[in-house]
């Protein structure tokens, strides 16, 4: 498993850089003004159920020191949300470990985002509408059925 280095940097797969640049250039999904931390957590969320180790060249994307208190809950829950035993709770109450998992989730998440964008053939409006539509189903599955 690729370990997050003891340093401050959070990495993504280098191959997604040009894709993200394209989203920024065309201002798709508000990417033009979006900081890297935000795009990262979006990818984490999309790939949260399929973490994949990044075996290729990595690129420094954002920093741990940029995670504010208001963000911490979300980042922490990626790992803590899988704890089933007390031992796991104690082990998983660790932001560095959570970030390691987040990097793996983002590896998948960026791929999912890219596939969806490619399906829309670069049509930003179509891409956004499809993502919006997907949220309806997600809400029904995740929230309504849970209430």
């Amino acid at each position, binding site marked *: 498993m690729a370990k997050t280095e003891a340093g401050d940097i959070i990495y993504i797969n280098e191959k997604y850089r040009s894709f993200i640049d394209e989203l920024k250039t065309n201002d798709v999904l508000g990417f033009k003004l979006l900081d890297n931390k935000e795009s990262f957590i*979006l990818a984490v969320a999309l790939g949260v159920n399929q973490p994949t180790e990044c075996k290729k060249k990595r690129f420094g994307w954002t920093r741990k020191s940029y995670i504010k208190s208001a963000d911490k809950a979300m980042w922490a829950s990626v790992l803590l949300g899988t704890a089933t035993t007390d031992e796991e709770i104690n082990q998983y109450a660790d932001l560095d470990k959570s970030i390691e998992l987040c990097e793996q989730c983002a590896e998948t998440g960026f791929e999912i985002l890219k596939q969806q964008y490619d399906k829309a053939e670069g049509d930003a409006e179509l891409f*956004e509408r499809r993502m919006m539509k997907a949220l309806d189903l997600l809400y029904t599955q995740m929230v309504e059925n849970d209430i």
Partner: protein
Amino acid sequence: MSPILIDRIEFENYRQYGTGHINFGVDGKHKLDVLIAQNGTGKTTLLNAITWCLYQKEHQIADTKSALPLPNKAVVNKAKVGTVITVSVKLRILDGDLIIDFTRSQEFKVIKQGKQQTVIDGPARFTAAITDKNDFKNTVVKNEQDADIVVKQYFDEAIFNFYFFDGEKLKEFFADERSQVVRNSVFNISQVTLLENATNHLSSMRYAHSRKLGKNAPDIQKLYDEQEEERALLKQARQSLSDGKIAQKRAEEELEIINKALSGYEPIRHYQNERAELEATVRMLKEELAQFRSDRADFIRRYTILLNLYPRLQHTLALIDQKESSGELPPAIDKDQVKKLIDNHAKTCPLCDGALDAAAFVHLQELLDKLSVSSHTSNYLKEIKSTLEREIEEAKQYKQKKEKLTQRERDLTAREEKAKGRLKEINSILSNFDSESKQIDVSKLENKRTTWQNKLKSAMKTIGAAESTITTAKKRIEDLDAEIETFTKKIDAYNETKQIISVLESMIEGFDTIKENIMSGMRSEIESTTWAIFDSMIWKKNTFGSIDINDAYEITVYSKDGTRMTGSLSATEQMALAYAYTLAIHRASGKNCPLVIDSPLGRVSDDNRENMAKVLKEISKDKQIIMLFTPDEYSSAVKHIYKDVATVRELKLSSDESVVEGVDR
């Protein structure tokens, strides 16, 4: 700026000037020469002599094919058949300490044609001999193309009529197709082109050195190659941006004129007003829709995150709640501390200093088993609890928030459709409007309007794309710089090459800065100088308000109330504008070149002649002006103005009309 001066012109067998010379008055307070000659004597031929010398063209001859050959007719007639006659014109220019002699010569062979003798063209030669006054022994002689380059630096042929001015040909001056030529030539004579050439040259060197650096390091080479591509993209995008802005301004100006014309026509005024309001509404809605799209994008991202992570958020909150309700949060005792005591076989209790025996350790172990979370975990969980609750709550509000967004979009879209629909109706009405007035063809103007609106849209698109490319390319170049720096730091062997590249980049940046500063200042400088001179020449002080020169170097004159009036200037006003523009270009170019004017006051009405003559006299204090008058133009009033300050010379034809008299031989 010290003036550049035409010191002397020498003729050899050239047309009616034959062999002789004219020295110009370069030493006085006013650098002013007046040559008076009847039409047909040789005024225009003098101008032709200058342009033939510099460009090998007699620009003032309408039809060169049917014109007389260059050699003086009397000389041809006297010569034996087979003789080679040399025709030459030499122009001496003074530029500070430099003396530059431009000499063009051509051989002509005398032949018999019927009863007449004529000539056939032979080889021509052109040189520029440059001598420093302080070092007469070392004259640099440039030939042909190199001499042409010297001419271009002073009197670029593309804008020859800004130096050698024919007052009778004002129409050509402001022709639309001239403006791009003017722009390029202004850059050339102000040496902006020189800066561009230097930059291009240094860029090629940089690339060559980077290849050297990358020879044994293909990764570096890839980075340099990518950087060159980005630089090329950046250059293209900048040009595109500049073109787009020029097109935008032009379209906006045209639309303003059209709208003004239409709104002045009473039968359609209410449509115009309604249209203006609707267009404002559409613009406002466009902004609102843009904001909506931004808000929608934020919403999609936020809920993609919240809903995908919802199970994890819920699960995390659930286990926090469970720990809290079972009293395990916060733990009464620090689990890690207890574990440490057990692992280290501590001898005494850190709290009460009591001895820790075997029973105590059993008790501690039981305690440890009861404690499920450490203090660190407890703090961690407590820190995130309230945020988790808020995020889960926010996730549950998805439907309401989405509904609000949908409603907002529906509302904006409906308003936009309504406004656009009505606009379409009005446009259709106006496009088919049958004007009663002969002065205004509404449907024609409407069609023009549509055309210019489409051009404006296209220009805005070009600008948007260019700006985007510029931002991306600049960022990429910076990123690549950083990557290259990382790589090259490790390669000591390439130090010298790296240093050279660094110097090259610094100079390129420097030249680019100089060029941009000169270019941006130049247009506005030309504009304000043109206005100042024009205003001083014109007697009407309440009519003209301003002059505008756009990035394409097209001139527009405005009245005091902002109406465009370039097309309705009188001949005198056109003359004044042409002079003003010419003088402004000279000033802005950084080179104070002389002006040779044929018929300087020919088209100027009597009451303005004196005024204009005085202005030209004033200008001649700092700039050489050579004027070719007819006796009629050189009225007594004008004579009075120039008599004490100008070198005056009269030219007339000899009795057999073979040669111009008044030239020094």
